[in-house]
Each structure stands twice: as C-alpha cells, then as structure tokens.
C-alpha cells in the first residue's frame, strides 16, 4: 500500500542551546526523530570585523583577527601576518620563524583539545571534557608566561613577534610535552575505544571525499574523508618544510571512511604530530634578535594578495588589498568553519535528532569565525 509517512514538524535548535558551539540557530525539519532538512541561521555573532579593518591601521587589525577564531588565536594572527609579509616582501629572521611555529602548533594542540573535549560532552561523557580542559590550562599557562594573555594574544606582528621567549621557556615546554604525551593514551582508553562512544560515532554522518571537495571543506574534516591535503605541505609557508611530520588521514577504523569517528580520530592523531613538530623546533631554535626585521611603519605597496594557512579548523585564507596608505582598503577572511557548516545538511539526511548534534560536534566549528 505504501509507507506510512508521519507529519513533518519544524523544530528549532535555538540560539541558546548547550550543544551548539556558539550562538547558532538550526531549523530542523523532522518527523519526530528522523531529520529530513536542516537550515542553519547565522549572524548572531557578527561583529563587523571586515568593516573595522577598513578603518584602523595594519597593526591594529591584529587584535581583531584574534577575536574571530578565538580558540586558535595564534593561527589567525599567523595567517594575517604571513599574508602581509608576502605583500610587503619582508623576510623575517630565523628565530622569529621558529618562535611562530612553536606558538602556532601549541595553539593547535589547545584548540583540538577543546574541540575533542566538547565533542565528548555532546555525546554525554562529562569526565574526559574536564580532563582535557585541565591539560589545555597548562598550555595557556605557557602562553601567559610568554605574552601575558591566556586567550587573545596579539602576539604575532608584521615582521616579528611582540615579545621574545622568556628565559626558561625550553625547560618548561619540554616539561609540558613530557607530561602531555602519555595523557593522549589515557584519553584513548577513557573515551576513544569506549564501545558506547564507538557505537555513537561510527558510521554516522559519513562525508564522502567527492562531496567534501565539492563543498570546499578543508582541514581535518577533509583529511578524515581520505584526502591527503594539508596547506603546510602543499603550499608551505614559514619554515614548515624543514620539519618532519606526517599528515594523518582517516582510515575507517571502526566504520566507514569519513564518519564522525574518523574526524575525531584524525584530531587525536594531529595532536601527536604537533607535539613532534614542537619538539623538533625547540631543539633547532637559534639565538637572535626578534626586532631586527620589524618595520617601523607599515605601508605596504599598492596591490592585493590572497594567502592561505592551515588553522586547526582548516584552510584559513586572508585577502588583503592596499593602496599605499597605512590603513587597508579591504581585508577579507575566508573562514574554514563556514564551509564545514554548509555541508551539515547533506551529511545528516536520514539520521536521528541525537545524531545531528553528534555530527555538528564532530565538525568542530567556532561561531566567531563563521560570523566574524
């Protein structure tokens, strides 16, 4: 006779919800449990970053870039500074390059810890979240020792960094890395291999590689679908080509390739790779003066540039247009979390309500970056 079809109802996962990573409104069309369409509504966190940057000078834009992706501020700064230095044709000194890489990779670990911990919280595991935050606090302590701030640093400046590393930095950083590496194994035992967690996340929200590429998804989400693409290896910037690290890709450990578990697993593996990079950088860092290549006045030549770097969310791009004055004409930030959110509708067709939140958590979005 045909399939019994219930009525469709519209359910609002509102701007205030414990599980959306920021203020996001999802309008879900569902028939009770199975979801048929999701429409995200954005703009609750829009703060006119791009308009502000048309009115302040180039070095004053950097605190604004911090606040876009607030969980990985060092990487947001890094992207802007790399683009500016290519526009102005500045080559920074070696010590500055090493310091920048160390800070960016430590921030990558911190961001992944929060992303993975919050994902555990969405699925219902309260304890791993708190443990991961505790370890993230140690990284923030290291940042506080160097530049005074814990979350929004304003650390990477055009042509250098704002403060040199303090005198005991190597010892403290090695102490932290030695403490942290066995903790990843503990998290694996507590959360990753837990059968309930695996059942919740394996085979759910599969993102096939061709769909990911057609949406423009990049970063961890793309690597989890099996595509080996990392901006640090494809278009190397700074001194990433000197380090020896792998690109982890999804391997269908417990389910199909590109499901939520793969995205989570790739983040855990990336933390291990970042630890490798930081260790190598700390061994090779030379002495030097960080202020020698910093320009006194920032007046880039007329022109424009688009440069992308690898932030923990994906492919972060900056388009900067200048006309010779100390104030930029246009700064546009290409946000990787925006493209990740746009593929939410496609990959959550046919799954249940609890799975929608699970899939949203696995994409690791930050609303500050999406809304700018």
């Amino acid at each position, binding site marked *: 006779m045909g399939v019994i079809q219930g009525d469709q*109802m519209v*359910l609002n996962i509102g701007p205030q*919800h*414990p*599980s959306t990573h920021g203020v996001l409104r999802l309008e879900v069309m569902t028939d009770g*449990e199975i979801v048929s369409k999701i429409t995200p509504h954005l703009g609750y966190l829009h703060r006119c970053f791009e308009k502000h940057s048309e009115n302040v000078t180039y070095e004053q834009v950097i605190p604004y870039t911090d606040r876009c992706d607030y969980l990985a501020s060092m990487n947001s700064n890094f992207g802007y500074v790399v683009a500016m230095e290519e526009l102005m044709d500045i080559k920074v000194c070696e010590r500055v390059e090493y310091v920048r890489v160390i800070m960016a990779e430590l921030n990558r670990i911190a961001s992944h810890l929060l992303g993975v911990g919050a994902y*555990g*919280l*969405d*699925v*219902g*595991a*309260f*304890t791993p979240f*708190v*443990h991961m935050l*505790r370890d993230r606090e140690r990284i923030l302590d290291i940042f506080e020792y160097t530049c005074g701030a814990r979350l929004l640093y304003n650390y990477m400046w055009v042509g250098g960094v704002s403060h040199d590393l303090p005198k005991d930095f190597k010892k403290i950083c090695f102490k932290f890395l030695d403490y942290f590496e066995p903790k990843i194994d503990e998290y694996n035992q*507590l*959360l990753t291999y*837990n059968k*309930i*967690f695996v*059942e*919740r996340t394996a085979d759910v929200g599969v993102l096939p590689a061709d769909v990911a590429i057609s949406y423009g998804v990049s970063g961890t989400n793309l690597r989890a679908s099996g595509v080996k693409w990392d901006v640090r290896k494809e278009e190397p910037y700074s001194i990433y080509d000197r380090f020896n690290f792998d690109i982890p890709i999804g391997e269908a450990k417990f389910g199909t390739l590109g499901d939520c578990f793969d995205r989570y697993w790739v983040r855990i593996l990336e933390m291990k790779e970042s630890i490798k990079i930081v260790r190598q950088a700390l061994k090779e860092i030379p002495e030097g003066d960080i202020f020698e290549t910093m320009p006194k006045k920032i007046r880039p030549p007329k022109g424009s540039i688009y440069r992308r770097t690898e932030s923990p969310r994906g492919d972060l791009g900056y388009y900067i247009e200048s006309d010779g004055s100390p104030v930029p004409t246009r700064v546009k930030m290409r946000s990787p979390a925006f493209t990740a959110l746009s593929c939410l509708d496609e990959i959550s067709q046919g799954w*249940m*309500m*609890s*799975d929608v*939140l699970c899939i949203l958590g696995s994409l690791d979005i930050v609303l500050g970056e999406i809304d700018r």
Partner: protein
Amino acid sequence: MTIDFIINQFTEIIGNFPVAAFLVACASVGGLLFVLMALNAMVAVYVERKVSAFMMDRLGPMGQGPGLHAGKWGILQTFADAIKLLIKEDTIPKSADQILFKVAPFIIFIGAIIGLSALPFSSSIQAVDLNVGVFYIIAVGSIGVIGIVMAGWASNNKWSLYGAMRSAAQIISYEIPAGLSIIVPIMMSGTMNLQNLIEYQSGSIFGIFPNWIMFQNPFAFLAFFIFFISAVAETNRTPFDIPEAESELVAGWMTEYSGFRWAVFFLSEYANMFVVSGLAVAGFMGGWLSPIPGFLNSPVLGLFWFFGKVSFLIFVMMWFRWTFPRLRVDQLMYVCWKVFIPIAMLNIFGVGIWKLIFG
C-alpha cells in the same frame, strides 16, 4: 512489621480504636519514610557532587573562610540548595496544561515513596512485611512512567515531549529484563517474601564465603548484573539518560519545572535509586546479613549492613554516570530487547537446570 507493631502497641496502651490506630501507625511510619527520603536525597546529592568532582580532578563544593559559607568541606551545600529551591518563584507557562502540570511531580513522588515501604531495613525494621514483597516493588516502580509522560505533555514544549516519549519507551522496555532477572532469587529460594528471601541467604559456602544468592550460581551472578543495569536504566541515569540528556534536550521533560516542583523530581530520582538498589541488595546480596557468615548479626547491626551495601551500589551508579557517554535511543532499545532479554531468559533456564542437578 513496623506498622503492625505500632497498631498493637496503640491497642494495648490506649484502647480498641482500630481506625485511629491504623491512621496513627500509617502517619508516623509514612513520616519516617519521608524523612528517610529527604535525608537520602541530601546525602546522595552531596556524595554525587563530591564523587564527580574527584573523578574530574577538582574539589567540588568546599566551604571555608570566614563564616564557613557552606560548612566545612561543603557539607551544608545541599541544605543551602534546598532552601534556595523552596524560596524560588513558581513559574508555570501560560500555555501549559495547568492541572496536569501541577499533579505530575506528585505522581512520580508517590511511585518512589511507596516502593520504600516494602524494603527490609533489618530483621525487625520494615514498614510492611508483604508476602509478595518483590512483586509489589516491581509493580509499583511503573507508576513513575505516568508522571513523566504527564510532565512532558503538560509542558507544551516540543523538547519536553521528546524527553517524555523516550523515557516512557525506555522505562517500560527495561522492566522486562529487570523482572525476568529478579525471578532467579525467587526460583532459588522459593518465596517472594523479602524477609524469608534474606533468611534463605544466611549460612555460608565452603565455610568462608557468605551464602548470598549471587555467589551460589554463575547464572545468578549474571542475573545480578542484568538486574542492576536494567535498574540503572529504569531510573534514567547515564548511560541511559536520554530523557534528560543535558546536552541535547536542555533538560528533557523537566525543562519547564523550577523551584519546589523540580525539587520533588530530584527527590524522587534519588529515592528511586535507593529503592532499586535496596531490591538488588535484598534479592542478591544478602540484605541485612553481615559479610562474615555467622558473626556480627543483630537487628541493629543489620541496619548498618543494609545501608552500607545500598550505599555501595549507589556509588557504583554514580561511577557509571561520570565515566560513560550516553546511548542513542535505538541503541538503547537494541541493548534491551536483543541482548538483555535473551540473557535473562537464559539465566532462568540455567538456574532451573542447576537446581535440578545440584539440588
């Protein structure tokens, strides 16, 4: 037993007024049970917060400093929370169903408190010594479902309705493995009377181990686990806390409740935990008998052993909550119908064969 005892004393001391005797006995015992429920909630909430904090490498409620603002080590924290809940504003959404909204918490409360009346706290302390004690507690445990569905419906909120529907499905499904598993002690001891069930477990195996039902038989051991996990599912605790999943449904079917009404829900959740743990202890772990067979058995010490074992099981429930993520609804149903029920039926079969062979 206690109600009969009080009625007898009343008749002896004051005279032959059966109705008055009955009312006085029921009121006093009911009052004592309510006090027990309140104390249990206070202690259990404090222990839960401390246990969850210690597992997360933090301290939990600690009161110190001038004025000791929550008691030393935060002991008075629950007391302060109770006062706060009592003086909160009573908000009822205008489009909610007024009568059902107000009645729902009390139905759940009633379901929890009358289960307490059949638990054997000691060899001479028990509110009512029913001949069908086990059956009564299992039956009364289902009253709570009506309250939950009423609460979810009356809130006039899609999220609450979600939580209520899931909870109804969950509780009704998990009653089956719980009921099938509790048949095992009944089969082995031949009685549904809780005091006789506990007396059957006195004595020892090989002279050193206590003769508890869960040690007598590998199938009984398995039945204890199945019963305990189904009991955790019946009380809506993680990993089965889909109805009140905090990160998905805000607070599920309790979303619209605040203040005193929410306190009643909270009280009944902890009372439910106590009742199912009490039944597990009485049925499988020897009730008020001491772990050293033959020694330290007395009406007063029995109270101590009973509460100790129940506290241990409640601690294990809290341990589960703070370690595991939660199951999805269809996985929950899969676990119940396709894993627990076959194992429970296998247990009954196995215990029967065991008794036939080994007597």
